[in-house]
């Protein structure tokens, strides 16, 4: 490990900053990890109910959202490369696309949740009482996990919008873009969590 970075808080330490971000991402993974453990246990406990409940989720919306998130992650990477090549405007456009795609994801999620709630499928909802224990746990997990994920999308979007402002003001530049990279890492994390949520809730029947 190099030691030249030991010049206190006036120093700039990109490596350290990235390491801090990765550690933070570990904590996020473990936060969701707790939920994944619960999902696994309940799936094992109520395999049939989980199948029935999963059938009622709209695979199409889920798939569209997956495509949206994957593309938005790609544009973040491209935006970082663009900034490194000093193509500031192009970089901003790419990040703009990410924000739009992320926003579209949330809109889809909103319609998806509203449809469920409209049918009375929500905690303490009229339809929930008719469901088996396993199904109600499935929907409980569905709301908590996708809800928590949506919250992360919002945070990630805010993070990226801040970076766009920084880039526009010239505070993040081609040779000093560690903050943007960290924002990108965070966005990829949000993406990767969805990549696990999608099959677990929508695809496994």
């Amino acid at each position: 490990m190099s030691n030249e970075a030991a010049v206190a808080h006036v120093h700039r330490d990109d490596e350290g900053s990235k390491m801090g971000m990765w550690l933070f991402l570990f904590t996020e993974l473990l936060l969701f990890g707790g939920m994944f453990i619960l999902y696994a246990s309940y799936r094992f406990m109520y395999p049939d109910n989980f199948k029935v409940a999963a059938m009622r989720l709209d695979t199409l919306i889920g798939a569209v959202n997956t495509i949206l998130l994957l593309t938005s992650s790609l544009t973040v990477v491209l935006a970082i490369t663009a900034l490194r090549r000093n193509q500031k405007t192009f970089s901003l456009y790419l990040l703009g696309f990410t924000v739009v795609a992320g926003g579209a994801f949330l809109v889809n999620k909103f319609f998806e949740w509203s449809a469920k709630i409209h049918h009375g499928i929500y905690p303490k909802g009229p339809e929930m009482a008719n469901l088996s224990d396993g199904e109600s746990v499935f929907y409980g997990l569905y709301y908590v996990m996708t809800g928590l994920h949506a919250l992360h999308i919002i945070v990630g979007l805010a993070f990226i919008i801040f970076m766009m402002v920084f880039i526009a003001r010239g505070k993040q530049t081609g040779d000093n873009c560690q903050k943007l990279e960290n924002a990108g890492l965070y966005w990829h994390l949000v993406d990767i969590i969805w990549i696990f949520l999608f099959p677990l809730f929508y695809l496994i029947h």
Partner: protein
Amino acid sequence: MENVSYLDYKGKHKGLLGWILSTDHKRIAILYLVSLIIFFLVAMTFGFLMRLEMLTPGKTIIDPQTYNALFTLHGVIMIFLFIIPGIPAVFGNFFLPIMLGAKDVSFPRLNLLSWYFYIGGAALVLISLFTGGGPIDTGWTFYVPYSLRTQTNVSLAVFAAFVLGFSSILTGLNFIVTIHRMRCPGMGWFKMPLFAWGLYSTAWIQVLATPVIGITLLLIILERFFGVGIFDPALGGDPLLYQHLFWIYSHPAVYIMILPAMGLVSEIIPTFSKKDIFGYGPIAMSSLAIAFLGYLVWGHHMFSSGISDTSRAIFSFLTFIVAIPTGIKVFNWVATLYKASIDARAPFWFVVAFIVIFSIGGLTGLVLGSLNTDIHLTDTYFVVAHFHYVMFGGMGLLFFGGLHYWFPKMFGKMYNEKIAKLGTLIFVIGFNGLYFPMFIMGYLGMPRRYYDYLPQYQIYHVISTIGSWVLIIGILILIFNLLKALLSKSNTTTELNPWGGTTLEWTVPTPPPLENFDVIPTVTHGPYYRPNLIKPEKSH
């Protein structure tokens, strides 16, 4: 300008603002120190009231509901507001950068933010006492389904613990990056002081275990507000899963509590033994081993909860394995003392008391870790005694030990050592008077958390309550002795190295200046190397 101490430094802000907006790691450490001691005294008072209530069977001074609230708050405040942040937040913040030869931690602003999370969490705990259904009465473990049903203000208290978890994560994250990135030239991993190794292992647990309790506590809140039914058996949930998730964090958390204390012991012992520590490598590695193994033993809190026999056997086996790295540490400390020219100054007294008390706590841990005896002893006062011996006798005692060890360096004042030693002695007598009878009455079947008891247990309760008075007298002597030293004008010291320590914090001015070092030092030897010592040629 160069050598203005961190205490007198005038920055952008003056007065109190100069402290609560300062990103200097030393000032943040003092912020933590003051807040921690206040909460410690509050929780100690709750403990005192509980013991007073237990003096006689039936009602002595308070009603059962208040008693339930008291033991819950005693636990919540002691654990989340004192023991977990404890040594890392105070001494880690103050001394880790100095010991590594750095000017500050890697993320000074994040460091200040973590103190705000701490104070915010603490404020939420206090608010939860007076709003909603009143003080929480679930016990510090918040077990479902009771925590979902009780009318007391569980949601806010649990949210407070969630916020405090953030504080802990940020401190851990900061320390890991600091240790990786900020070591001064020449300080390889195996030339770090052992306190840094203790903090490093702790920091990994803070980062990797705390999020699990975060999500678990969040789920309690969601269940209470929306009835999502993930843990509620009435809605298909499984309360046992709550216990699993809770202990997946809370068992590693006991190592968050103890590892920094062990690191501190590894600092104090070589200083007062006047020689290099015996077994540097094994002590450093055993910290990592404890941190790692600590993840795998959570099930031993659930031996009587209805988990399968196979998993109980495995968890019991792994629990015994944890004793090995702990034993390695204790033996190496004792081996360091062997043939040393020991200078038994005040901080050393804490370490001796620690080794004895912690060994009792550790060995009774094995009694609880083995299945058959645990079935008999679980949820009795034996458990209460065990964890107070390891936690209070470990982290609590060493918190005061560290304070006495580093006090001259931190404040440039020297306290009265005779009174400190007297305070330690009274502390240890009171401590054993308070907790040892609990082993006996627990073995005889006195259940923990009960408001009332049968008359045959009274003799033990009386001894225990008297012990609590003695212990409190000891603690107050220690605190007042330090306060007196702090406030008096006459006993100022600028001596760099009052104890003859060898680590870098003893080379900076007393009290340390704002950025610690004018010139970043270069290290050529191990942390406890003493050049004038006659010894066999082997050296680090």
